[in-house]
């Protein structure tokens, strides 16, 4: 009997290992990654800490997963132990207990989609998952129980047959998708492309520089992704959390991050298993022939999908498999932009202006300071020196945002700070070009910006633009530019804390703060603006989605210049959320958010930058 159980459970485990090697052989056709398999020893830690940190945000799902996964694996280990070592009834009983727990897990998996599959979850073969799990757990659990009590051969054999059938079904579900995450997840966690995310090391959000001399720039076919990235796509469990968080999906644009990852996973296979989740709106899943060397965009992925993404990272924040959707989008955009020039018209114009005028709007760099001209902010010349270098950013060309900058400059003056701008030497930081996949223009702009900054002496850079903050803080270091960069809300918070600005809370509006993605999710700065608002206003509320899980305004990632079709506008959705929170004023901290939310028509809450609200509250 023991041999039979070893044969059955061990055989299934062995088959799973072989299956893993088959998948690995496919991922290895991607670009090589160093130290990938050495990362296997990190997997338990990453899985138990980081994955579960995300999974646990939904306690019911976490419970279900802990029981099902724990039961399936724990039972397997204990039963093998008992059978191989000839251990006594106690180990068999423990194995039966573990499988029993797995059985309850299977029940919970079943309850998830019954009576009705929630829209964000996939149906199709997923409906067979509970049955397969139940057969494996119940069959093997009974076998273990019978062994524990020393029952006769027949019931053991029948139980083993049931468990074996369940095991075979689970293996089949690896190939079809629902169980693939278990095997692919191991490889992905081992070779995760952003190791900085793990073990409390913090965030890792900057895009990596591309070697512009490489023969293939970006991604055109699946083999252009790195091996671990391919494993990451296969690791998607189709839970739909990313889809629920995606602003582009909510606005009816042709993007669903879950369908995107599934398309990339399917792109590796000549005959991908059918996808039974929601597709991107108005963009049915393309049924092109997949393959490691087959083109992705236009073949298995709708063209518009790429350009709809605002790079807000909401999907990444929610993904329990820690998949990096934005990196995938940018890699594909790099291929389209650099290798084919296949950008949308508006984006092509912005890129041309970035190349030829160092400014995506095509405006004269010398005019950047016009909105604050009346305040006579000094310009620091090459070789010159100042305390704080004020980086104005693209928003400076906009009259509305000029008010914010004037408020900031006025506050900095009040606090007695010494600061200056680069004047006409401030080029665009390259954020837009980089998000649109034009790494060549980004690197050219970055080199120019870095040399302009290197030619001056200052203690830190302050900017009111979170995109500039992110690029200078997180992306320039790889290109040789390292300074202390501060967002204006961080600076003002410091000034208030140190008593250099005194605020008196103003009554009136009920204020909701909208977190800019590039300040919150990209840089983890969600507290300083709130402290400032609490010091400046009497009545502050939170929108349902706020902080690290805030919803994007729709302005990032070159999505607005790409002009993609939509059913509704993302800022309209966000404004609705502000209304639902009862806000009569939305506080912002980014020129992009200001422009997007100010663009919402009809009666709506007012839009004010945090700096404007602080200026209104300042008393000394």
């Amino acid at each position, binding site marked *: 009997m023991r041999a039979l159980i070893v044969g059955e459970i061990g055989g299934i485990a062995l088959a799973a290992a072989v299956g893993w090697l088959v998948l690995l052989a496919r991922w290895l056709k991607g670009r090589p990654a160093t130290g990938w398999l050495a990362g296997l020893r990190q997997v338990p830690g990453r899985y138990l800490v980081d994955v579960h940190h995300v999974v646990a945000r939904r306690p019911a799902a976490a419970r279900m997963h802990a029981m099902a996964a724990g039961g399936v694996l724990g039972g397997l280990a204990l039963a093998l132990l008992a059978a191989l070592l000839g251990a006594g009834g106690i180990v068999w009983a423990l194995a039966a207990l573990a499988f029993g727990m797995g059985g309850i897990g299977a029940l919970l998996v079943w309850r998830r989609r019954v009576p009705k599959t929630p829209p964000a979850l996939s149906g199709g073969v997923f409906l067979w998952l509970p049955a397969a799990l139940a057969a494996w757990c119940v069959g093997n659990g009974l076998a273990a129980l019978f062994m524990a009590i020393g029952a006769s051969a027949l019931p053991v054999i029948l139980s083993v047959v049931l468990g074996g059938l369940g095991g075979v079904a689970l293996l089949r579900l690896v190939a079809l998708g629902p169980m693939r995450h278990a095997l692919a997840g191991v490889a992905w966690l081992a070779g995760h492309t952003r190791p900085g995310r793990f073990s409390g090391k913090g965030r890792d959000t900057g895009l990596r520089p591309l070697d*512009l001399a490489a023969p293939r*720039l970006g991604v055109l076919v699946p083999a252009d992704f790195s091996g671990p990235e391919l494993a990451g796509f296969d690791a998607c469990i189709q839970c739909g959390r990313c889809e629920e968080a995606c602003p582009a999906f909510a606005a009816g644009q042709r993007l669903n991050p879950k369908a995107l990852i599934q398309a990339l996973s399917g792109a590796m296979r000549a005959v991908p298993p059918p996808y039974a989740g929601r597709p991107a709106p108005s963009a049915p899943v393309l049924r092109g022939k997949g393959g490691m060397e087959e083109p992705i965009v236009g073949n298995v992925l709708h063209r518009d999908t790429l350009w709809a993404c605002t790079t807000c990272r909401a999907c990444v924040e929610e993904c329990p498999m820690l998949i990096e959707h934005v990196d995938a989008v940018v890699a594909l955009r790099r291929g389209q*932009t*650099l*290798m*084919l*020039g*296949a*950008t949308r018209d508006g984006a*092509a114009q912005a*890129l*041309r202006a970035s*190349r*030829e*005028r*160092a*400014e995506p709007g*095509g*405006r*004269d*760099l010398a005019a950047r300071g016009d909105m604050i001209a009346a305040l006579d902010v000094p310009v620091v010349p090459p070789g010159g020196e100042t305390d704080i270098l004020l980086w104005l950013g693209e928003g400076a060309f906009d009259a509305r945002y000029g008010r914010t900058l004037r408020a900031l400059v006025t506050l900095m003056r009040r606090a007695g700070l010494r600061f200056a701008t680069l004047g006409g030497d401030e080029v665009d930081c390259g954020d837009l070009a980089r998000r649109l996949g*034009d790494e*060549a223009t980004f690197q050219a702009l970055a080199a120019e910006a870095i040399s302009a900054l290197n030619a001056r002496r200052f203690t830190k850079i302050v900017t009111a633009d979170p995109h500039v903050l992110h690029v200078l803080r997180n992306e320039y270091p790889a290109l040789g530019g390292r300074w202390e960069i501060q967002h204006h809300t961080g600076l003002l918070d410091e000034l208030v804390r140190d008593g250099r600005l005194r605020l008196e809370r103003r009554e009136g509006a009920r204020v909701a703060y909208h977190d800019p993605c590039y300040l919150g999710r990209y840089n983890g700065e969600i507290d300083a603006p709130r402290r400032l608002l609490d010091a400046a206003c009497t009545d502050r509320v939170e929108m349902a989605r706020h902080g690290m899980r805030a919803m994007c305004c729709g302005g990032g990632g070159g999505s607005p210049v790409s002009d993609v079709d939509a059913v509704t506008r993302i800022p309209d959705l966000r404004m609705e959320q502000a209304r639902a929170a009862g806000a009569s004023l939305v506080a912002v901290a980014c020129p992009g958010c200001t422009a997007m939310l100010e663009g919402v028509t009809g009666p709506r809450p007012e839009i004010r930058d945090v700096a404007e609200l602080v200026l209104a509250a300042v008393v000394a």
Partner: protein
Amino acid sequence: MRSVVLLSGGIDPVSGRSAPPRGEIAAIGLALSAGGAVGGLHVGLPAAALGQAAGHGLGQIACLRGVGDPVAILAAHLSAAPPDLVLAGSRACGGEDSGMLPYLLAERLGWPLLAGVMAIGAGADGWLPVTIGLPLGARQDARIRLPCILCAHDAAPAPPFVFDRARRVAMHTVAVADAETIAPLEGTERPYRARPRLIGSAAPAGGGRVLDNPDPAEAARVLLDHLRALGMLGA
């Protein structure tokens, strides 16, 4: 069909940075639509704008290095191995570049020239059908004998910029015989001043007149009357 696109060391009018003029990008598009071999041609040292122009679809660019009148240098080079088609932009944007160049070149080569070309068709029997862009979106079909020079309309479709092409361009310098020198341009630079608007000049005033094979003196008189009527020559 072998085409040559004339490239200048363009400068962006707003930023003063190197950039291919819009018309030259359109000219590359026309050359590509003609099919066959397409090359770029520039008189002078390789300039940054050339690489950017190449990104719009040129595999190779020859830079002619010789001293003297660029028109003479180009004419000598082109007549040594005449292409079927020479394309240029319609407006110069940098330094001593001149929009006159294609005209002077046509005169010297004795080739026909058409300006404002929006599209070209399939050539046959030594003739090439082209579409000319007129003001207010009007179009006119014409035929021109090959070899010829075409100046692209600024609004002709521009092929997209592809960085991969720009970085792959084969740029070679060709040493050529010096040509006659031209007097260096003398002039003063002064800031741009908006010129007074000619009210009504944007709309075609009554369609104008078509003179069929007119007497030169008669043609000149009609032109002068027309310019006076527009107020451009004083009373």
